[in-house]
């Protein structure tokens, strides 16, 4: 999974994804300390991630491995909201 921050939303009314009520989040990739990388990905939100929360995004075909997205054309999905990251025994990110 990659780390990213929820920085916005992407709205589309004409799509062939076919998931009712699907909301797409604009995710900016960041490192484990939360430093933003100016690299964006649109991800389907399964966990109700809020603004500025650090999340884990799963990319590729595994994005289809949930009941809601099975055989849907999705290749990026928010799979978790990060509470805390520690690196070499010191906490470098806390929600």
């Amino acid at each position, binding site marked *: 999974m990659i780390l990213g921050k929820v920085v916005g939303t992407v709205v589309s009314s*004409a*799509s062939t994804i076919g998931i009712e009520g699907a909301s797409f989040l604009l995710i900016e990739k960041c490192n484990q300390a939360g430093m933003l990388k100016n690299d964006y990905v649109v991800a389907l939100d399964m966990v109700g991630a809020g603004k500025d929360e650090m999340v884990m995004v799963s990319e590729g075909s595994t994005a289809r491995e949930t009941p809601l997205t099975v055989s849907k054309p999705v290749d990026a999905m928010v799979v978790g909201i990060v509470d805390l990251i520690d690196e070499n025994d010191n906490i470098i990110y806390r929600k």
Partner: protein
Amino acid sequence: MILARVVGTVVSSHKPREMDGIAFLLIEKIDPVTMKGKGDYVVAMDSVGAGLNEIVFYASGSSARFTPTTDGKPTDCSIIAIVDFIEKNGAFTYRKDKAED
């Protein structure tokens, strides 16, 4: 999924039979804040009927085959949505109704 702008079309007559009748669009990845192109282009199969200069996002890899039009086709990049709005930190960075063509 990655955001991009439709910048052109690609026509190919020598291709596998099952790809007949499917539009290939030339799309350019964009930075969703400045809405400027990144100079990185991809040929994508169109499953939503996207037009020139429209902002879209696409699925790549095996997920590109899971739309009705691209099912069973040898594509690894399919446009799956036409974008209406992009909002970042509470402000629109793109509005389809205000976009100048």
